[in-house]
């Protein structure tokens, strides 16, 4: 018997992570795509860190930070009565950090790929920076936005190490599909593990397939134009 709650939880986590990251990443990528200064390079490095760090490093520090004995966790508990460790909110924050480069990088390279004349034309026609970003630049990098969304979603589905470290495996709250698979394998329950795994495999495949299909179609349109 496969319980649907881990799969449902994984999808919910991925959806919310993608939604929040999309809103965060656009201004961040826009800021990063400007002239390279030291602070900008510094932030760029931080954004890229989750790409190279093992999830256990992030998980370890988040566990310490979220724990009520830690400075951050203690403050949150004392003032707001919030405890992030072993909660869905905590997982969401972890996922946002972990998937940050997967959303920021495509958007950033999309913005960098646009000719500067596009921006300059919009400015000289009296558009503000914000109007230019949302009205001119972003509509021109749709494939990059789409790539960011799909990659973030798929990457969050595949998240395992951090959830394992700070989740606490609570059914319906932090027991995501990847954890459920791990547990079923540990318990030698291969058929159940297989059902979860196959579902994830299918979802990931379809998503990536859609992404490549979409990018291919766009490439064709561009060629025709």
């Amino acid at each position: 018997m496969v319980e649907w709650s881990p799969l449902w939880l994984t999808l919910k986590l991925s959806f919310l992570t993608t939604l929040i990251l999309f809103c965060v990443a656009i201004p961040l990528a826009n800021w990063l795509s400007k002239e390279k200064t030291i602070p900008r390079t510094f932030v760029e490095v931080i954004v890229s860190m989750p790409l190279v760090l093992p999830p256990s490093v992030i998980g370890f520090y988040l566990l310490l930070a979220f724990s009520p004995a830690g400075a951050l966790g203690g403050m949150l508990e004392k003032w707001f009565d919030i405890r992030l460790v072993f909660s869905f909110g905590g997982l969401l924050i972890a996922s946002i950090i972990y998937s940050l480069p997967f959303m920021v990088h495509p958007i950033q390279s999309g913005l960098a790929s646009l000719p500067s004349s596009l921006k300059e034309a919009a400015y000289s026609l009296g558009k503000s920076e914000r109007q230019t970003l949302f009205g001119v630049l972003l509509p021109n990098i749709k494939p990059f936005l789409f790539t960011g969304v799909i990659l973030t979603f798929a990457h969050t589905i595949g998240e395992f190490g951090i959830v394992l470290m700070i989740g606490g495996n609570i059914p319906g709250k932090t027991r995501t599909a990847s954890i459920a698979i791990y547990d079923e394998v540990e318990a030698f329950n291969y058929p159940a593990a297989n059902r979860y795994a196959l579902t994830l495999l299918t979802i990931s495949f379809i998503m990536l397939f859609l992404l490549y299909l979409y990018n291919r179609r766009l490439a064709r349109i561009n060629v025709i134009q």
Partner: protein
Amino acid sequence: MKKSLVSFIFCLFLFVCGLAQTKITVAVAANMQYTMEAVRDEFKKTDRTGIELIVGASGNLAQQIMQGAPFDIFLSADTSYPARLYENHFALEAPKVYAQGLLVLWTTKKNIHPGEDLKILLNEEIKHIAIANPQIAPYGASAVFILKKYDLFERVKSKLVMGESITQSSQYIATQAADIGFTAKSIVLSDKTKDKGQWSELNKADYPPILQAVVLLKHAQLSNSAAANRFYQFLFSEQAKNIFKKFGYLVQ
């Protein structure tokens, strides 16, 4: 030039093989890590065999052995994994119990005082109770058993957080991510956690004994069977038993 390189690599290969011959590999359940390090040091006083300890969750190690991991001896945290290995012809003989684990209630918070009475878990200030995943970890299963016995399971169910192994749930307690939790006595007695927080031993009549079994694996036949056998026998010696006792296990 090329020749010398080849002969160098060949020498290196021989050297590595030579080293490997005097070494056995022992897979150890996470809760036994420190204990087995002590047992190994004791064994080494009289025997020159190198012993490599591979530490992991029992379930993980059993999986690895079934996939062909080159381990000679497997010390599990329970009896079911060794039994499974034996049934599937990965072991040379039937598993034998080498130690019995004991369950304790442990906290590193100053304002919580664990005692014999488990009702403390109902306190409002306790938001998270760490246990090892009962589905795969024997200590977790025992914790659930004892909670059910005192009709507390349903009442504290929403507070339970699960670690993948007894060591992970202990991490949750040590970092205070969880306010209190069930763990192994061997963990609270180990050097690294000895003076951290407070613990109380649970009545061992309240839960089925956590028997830990060991098996001599088929791989031992291929590599260094005499040495593997010596270490296996050593686990049941008086010296080893004393170490097990000192680290918080019961032995027969």
